[in-house]
């Protein structure tokens, strides 16, 4: 176990917690969730289920979606991901980290003058493909990029 990982573990309370944190359940929260919050999607454990919850099953790959993110992230707790969609009439952008226990990290509904661009930072437990799922003009498109994680970050 390396030193940075140890420092990180100090914050998370040990190796067990690291694994457990990645598997954090949303189900048992008992909290009031926002009305339009995609509970099904956020609780899905498999990429296919996430896609289904978004209505994006069978989405096609598009070169008009650009993922800006590091090839190697130094800290899995803070992985910057920006998504640019050049697709006309971009309506929604989702960020999905395939190998996270709950892959769907965020969904952004774009309206009005909002451009097809969002930038955020997510936690990643391990090296994984990160998918951008974009709804444009009623259809779904995807792009993906592998991000290597040297220190996991599901705290």
């Amino acid at each position, binding site marked *: 176990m390396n030193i940075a990982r140890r420092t990180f573990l100090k914050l998370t309370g040990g190796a067990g917690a690291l694994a457990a944190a990645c598997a954090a359940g949303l189900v048992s*929260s008992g909290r009031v969730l926002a009305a*339009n919050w995609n509970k099904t999607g956020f609780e899905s454990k498999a990429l296919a289920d996430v896609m289904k919850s978004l209505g994006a099953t069978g989405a096609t790959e598009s070169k008009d979606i650009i993922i800006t993110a590091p090839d190697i992230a130094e800290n899995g707790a803070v992985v910057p991901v920006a998504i640019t969609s050049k697709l006309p009439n971009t309506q929604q952008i989702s960020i999905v980290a395939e190998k996270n226990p709950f892959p769907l990290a965020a969904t952004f509904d774009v309206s009005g003058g909002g451009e097809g661009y969002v930038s955020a*930072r997510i936690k990643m437990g391990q090296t994984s493909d990160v998918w951008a799922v974009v709804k444009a003009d009623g259809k779904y498109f995807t792009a993906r990029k592998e991000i290597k994680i040297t220190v996991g970050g599901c705290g």
Partner: protein
Amino acid sequence: MAEPMKIRATLQGDVADVRILMLHPMETGQRKDSKGQVVPMHFIQSVVVTHNGKTVLDTQWSQAVSRNPFLGLRIKGAKAGDKIGVTWVDNKGDKRTDEVTVTPAS
């Protein structure tokens, strides 16, 4: 208690480049504190960004969004002096709204 956000909205041509920093623990509900107590789940679920009162971005987040979150977006058809409003709501019902005006590129 919800701390103020740090919002920058800078005009580039007719596009406002909006950058938002929020102070929030984004707890997964699995982390233990130094005393071994589980820190309850606490994370922002929704962030809504408005441009002169009209919603331009409506986001849904999971706890996989990093602590002290950042959100960047761009808004077309903006001009200096336009109002950009940001509201976040977390799973405990805490919320925070801040507003800035779009500034010309320096």
